[in-house]
């Protein structure tokens, strides 16, 4: 017993409808394999972990509420700079003149 081709095609069509695939009995190149693939972009974009909230961010966030926390490192740094300034060893003041505002650019 042979099944007529038309009937087989009907079956194929029903199959395609059921599984929502493209009905393409002639096997034409319709580029569907491009659309079948899922998008990889979101996965690729999350390779590096996102930046989380740091201690510094917290302090900055709470600064308007006058919440202060001791920061030993920062205090030490400031003391050190103050000491340098007292001895006249700190960095020179930036000279800003009206004539050449692009002094830094010219230097390059």
């Amino acid at each position, binding site marked *: 017993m042979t099944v007529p081709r038309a009937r087989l095609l009907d079956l194929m069509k029903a199959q395609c409808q059921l599984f929502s695939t493209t009905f393409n009995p002639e096997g034409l190149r319709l580029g569907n394999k*491009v659309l079948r693939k899922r998008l990889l972009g979101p996965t*690729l974009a999350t*390779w*590096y972990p996102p930046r989380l909230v740091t201690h510094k961010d917290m302090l900055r966030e709470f600064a308007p509420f006058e919440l202060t926390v001791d920061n030993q490192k920062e205090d030490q740094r400031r003391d050190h700079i103050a000491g340098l300034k007292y001895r006249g060893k700190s960095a020179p003041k930036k000279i800003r003149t009206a004539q050449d505002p692009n002094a830094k650019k010219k230097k390059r």
Partner: protein
Amino acid sequence: MSMFIRSKKLDIGCYVNARVILDHTKRKAVAEAEPERQALRYIIRNTSLPARTRAIAQLQLTQMHPYTRPTGIRNRCTMGGRSRGVLRDFKMSRFMFRMHALAGNIPGVKKASW
């Protein structure tokens, strides 16, 4: 480059150097342009469309910014930025993986011994 300027604020929380930031920028560009690229690729591969349409799509695809190409992406070590010998499962280069595994920082990883 003007289209995909690096984000003004640092938005990744791992080891950071210029190459890591560049790679991250590329990844974001790829994710953003992927639907457009896939649509163009579909038009190019669809033989039932007129030849002219397909040729135009080909040209448009070649005119897209190089950063939107997924092949420009390279998996880098999230601990040291290294591009070679990176274990995909741990996102770490082989040496960083060894150091962290021996220190017991990676859950479920143990040095084999029998």
